[in-house]
Structures are given as C-alpha cells and as structure tokens.
C-alpha cells in the first residue's frame, strides 16, 4: 500500500470494450499503469493502439459505445468509474485536466477567450469577480507565452494562429493548476516554434510545481526530452514501462525496439545548453 502514496493515478487490470456493429471489441486489454506524484510519464504507441481511449478513460469520460469490462481506475484513491457525474465534475478542470491534440478545435468558436477562462475559473470558484477573473486569465496567458494577453481576452478563437490556439488550450488546462495534466499529442501538427515553447513550458512547470503529467504521443523524440518514465503501448496493452533511458537504450520488447529504431536521426538532438540542468544529457538518449 506504500505504492498508493506515491501514485496519483493507478490503473489496475483495465479492459475496455468498444461496440461496433452490435459487437463488443476490446481496445484495452488487462492494462495496469501508475502515474506517480510529480512525474512526467510518457505514453507512446502508434495511432489506433488505444492511447487516446486510455486518456479518455483516465479523465472519467463515459460513452454509450464504450464499457469498462474489468479493472479499475483510481485517481488519488478515488475510483473514477463509481463517481457520480456531479462528483466527477468537481475533479475535472480542478485536479484533472486535458490538453487536447487540436487546441483550435477545442475552443468554442462562439465564445471569446476571456469568457472561456472566466467560466472555467468560476465553475469551481463562483465568488471571483470580473477583475480577478481577467487578471488570472491574463496571468495564465502570459505564462504560456501568448503575446498581448489583455487584448487576447476580447478576441475569438479563430482570430489566433494554430500555435497560439494550442497555447491558449494549454493555459486553459493549467488555469486551476491540476494535480494531473493529461496531454494528448499536444505538439503534433504544430510548428517547431510552438512545439519548443510548449515543451519548455512543461519542463519549467515540472520544476516549479508538483504537477504530474501523462504525456501521450507517438513521437519518441519529443517524449525523450521531457519524460521521467515511459510506457510503450501496443494493441491495447502496455508492452514495456520503465525509466526513459532504460527503455530507449535497452528496449526489451520487439515492438519497442522497432519504435526506437524509427526515431528520426535527421533531427538534431536538443542543444544541451538549452536544457535545464536537471535533465539528463541528450547524448545518452539517442546514442
């Protein structure tokens, strides 16, 4: 039981089925996983392996065409599958947040950025007044490096570039400083600048707070930059999990080996000078 003290999110023997044309198919099979307090856990695997389904289950999402057949998902000792909608809502945004892959599409087109922040902040702290809400939103937007945060509040999502939209989505997820941040391919499809900015911000956050993160991506190169541990997912199962360098340097499962072999070599390793001192040197990762 000492593990539970370390672990923020524990998944035990989870099996998830999807219904397709009247038949149930397993997309996650007997999967166990734990996200420790204060760590960044990478979750890698190709598209269709069940990564996004797992992320969705961890957020407590329920859908008609999906069922949890076996196992449990516990967040800080709370079983998510037994929570009532109201209780689940109290966790969401506050303790448990998601950064989606397509930030632009995750922002409601008819609402101004300011309203998106105000409603999110107010959902859990109803007494905040307008000035406090705006100040808090501005603080979050400047933290993610959005230019002109004050002006941004009055604008609509479509008035920002794709990279800016992604930063806004990140700021929205961070605005209540959740205990666990789930990132679902947050840099996929972004330009190099945005990607760099988001990754640097995550590294800073990790150093300055005790926030845990689950970083879902198919891109090992990105994961290798920021994760402490990594889990390799294949066909609905975790085939390998361990410290970043162990997995990358000494992959045991054939699938992991194939995945590691496919890391693009053309991409220059990150400049060690730019990395925070706490990070391991990149040579060891890509050697």
């Amino acid at each position, binding site marked *: 039981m000492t593990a539970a003290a370390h672990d923020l999110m524990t998944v035990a023997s989870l099996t998830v089925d999807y219904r397709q044309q009247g038949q149930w198919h397993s997309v996650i099979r007997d999967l166990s996983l734990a996200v420790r307090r204060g760590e960044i856990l990478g979750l890698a695997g190709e598209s269709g392996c069940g990564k996004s389904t797992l992320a969705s289950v961890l957020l407590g999402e329920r859908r008609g065409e999906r069922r949890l057949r076996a196992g449990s998902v516990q967040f800080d000792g709370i079983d998510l599958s037994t929570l009532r909608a109201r209780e689940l809502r109290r966790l969401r945004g506050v303790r448990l947040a998601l950064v989606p892959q397509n930030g632009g*599409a995750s*922002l409601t087109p008819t609402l101004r950025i300011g309203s998106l922040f105000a409603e999110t902040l107010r959902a859990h702290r109803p007494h905040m007044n307008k000035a406090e809400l705006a100040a808090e939103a501005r603080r979050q937007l400047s933290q993610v490096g959005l230019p002109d945060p004050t002006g941004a509040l009055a604008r609509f999502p479509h008035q920002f570039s794709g990279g800016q939209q992604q930063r806004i989505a990140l700021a929205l997820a961070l605005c209540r400083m959740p205990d666990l941040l789930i990132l679902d391919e947050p840099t996929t499809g972004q330009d190099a600048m945005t990607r760099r900015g988001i990754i640097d911000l995550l590294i800073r956050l990790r150093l300055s707070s005790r926030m845990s993160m689950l970083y879902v991506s198919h891109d090992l190169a990105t994961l290798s930059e920021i994760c402490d541990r990594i889990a390799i997912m294949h066909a609905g199962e975790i085939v390998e999990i361990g410290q970043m360098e162990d997995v990358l340097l000494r992959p045991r499962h054939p699938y992991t080996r194939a995945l590691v072999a496919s890391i693009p070599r053309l991409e220059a390793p990150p400049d060690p000078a730019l990395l925070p001192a706490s990070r391991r040197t990149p040579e060891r990762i890509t050697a």
Partner: protein
Amino acid sequence: MRVAPIPRLIVTRLALSVLSLFVVSLIVFSAVELLPGDTAERILGREATKESLAALRTQLRLSDPAPERYARWLGGIVQGDFGRSLVADRPVFSYIAGYLGRTLLLGGLALLIHIPLSIGLGLLAAARPDGASDLALSAAVLIGMSIPEFVVGIFLIMLLANDLQLFPPLALIDQAKSFGDVIHMLALPVITLNFAMTAYVVRQTRNSMIEVLKSDYVRMASLRGLSPLRVLFVHALPNALSPAINAIALNASWLVGGIVVVEVVFNYPGLGRLLVESIRFHDVPMIQGAALALSAAYIAVNLVADIATLLLNPKLRTRTA
C-alpha cells in the same frame, strides 16, 4: 480567406435588395403589359365607345412608349401613388397597407411558433440519434413537408373546424373582437404553414447538433468541469444554430409564397389573396401594388435573415487576425 467587415456586407446586401426591388418593378410592369386589352378598355369596360376610349387614351398618355410610361408609373409609386383600383375604384395604396399588415401578422405568428417548435424538435431528435423519437420525427416531418399546404389546410378545416368545431373554418379576421379571437381564427392557417416549414429546420438542427455534440470544444467544455446545462446552452447550442438559422431564413422567404395559397384556403384578407383576385379581375393597378408590396416584404425578410445570419456568426463578425 478574405472576410469583409460586417458594415460593408450589410451595405452590399442592402444595395442588392434595392436592385431586386427595381427588377421586380420592371417585371411587374412588363407582365401586366402582356394582359389583353389596354388600360382604357379596362377602365371603361366593354360598352365603351371608340371616342371615349380615344379620349381616355390621350388623357392617360397610353400611346407614349413603354419606358416613358414605366418611368411615370415608378415615379408615382415612389411618392406613394399606386393608382386607383379598377374594381373598387379607390386608391390602391389605402388597400395595400391593411392587407400587408394582415399578411405580416399571419406570417409573423407562423414564424413565432415555427422557430421554437422546429428547433426544439430538432434538439429532441438529436438527443438520441437514430432512436425511436428521432425516427418517428423524421418520418412525421417528411410527410408533413410532402403534403401540399392547400391539402393540409382543407383537411384541418374538415377535422378541427367542421367535425370537432375547435376553430373557425375561415379566418375572417375583420370580425375579430379581441386578441384572443385573432389567435383563435389564425390557429389553423398558422398550423398549416408550420406543417410545411418544420421538416427542413428540424433536420438541419438535428444534424448540426449531433455534429456539435461530437466536437472537441463540447468535449473540452465538459472536461473543464462545466455544468451540463452550460455545456449544452452556451457551448453546443449557439454553434449548432447557424444551419438552423439559415433554414429558418429560407422558410421565412418561403412563407411569403406559401402564404398566398393559405390565405386563399382560409379566405384570409391578406396581400396574397388580394393579388390572386386582382389577377382574376385584371385589376392592373391593384395587381401591381399587391405584387410589389408582397415582393418588397419578401426581399425585406431575406435581408433581415441575411443580416441575422451574419451577426450570429463570429467568423464573419470579426476579421481574421
């Protein structure tokens, strides 16, 4: 994507509307030119002598070329002079206003019911896509849309007016004594009009709501811990409405045509019935006045609908960065 600012778009639409009205006036003028006989014969009737006809023709300057007469006619209309009705021998203008008002009343009431009803049904259908209520609704609205409004009207009269005696069979609004009377009399025409209009909006609302409910931003809104009501009414609904509003706009303009038949079915003294009867009587000034007023109403409804659609779409409301 090049997006023009709203004021410019509105000015463009406005200019287009004025142009449309001008084209309508040309069409109205040329159409009645095709009627057999000329104005003098119509005014004086069959027993007129050649001399009196010739005198009237000179007086009315009927031998002037058509463009000249058109300009004179249009000039009069701009000043509110629509001529005198040949049948009623009264200024057309005094007629038109009252008839237009009654047509707008009927159309307005129909829309007032139509908007919440069809959007509500659309949302109901979207709640459980392909569920029993969805399928039943699709079938019902499809059939409703496929039955001509004159058939719907006649059977409503038979069933609700003659057999059950719930409503009066004819909308003789001149005899209404109170607002309750008006509603009571207009119930059947309003139901008839809604029969035809509902299908399209229900379908648009349903489809776009289903799409929107699957969208990333609705998912994220609930993942940020917002209440289900807020997710539904602040995040989903406004974004699902745009196709529904387009459909309602189309219906509003359809209404101007559909109302003609319904007015005839229920003997309702509106512009549509006035137009139909004046055409039967070859009452040229009245035809022109009624057709112009009805077209103006149609164009105005379109203009309002266009602008409403524009204003409700934030992508058009603001320029892209």
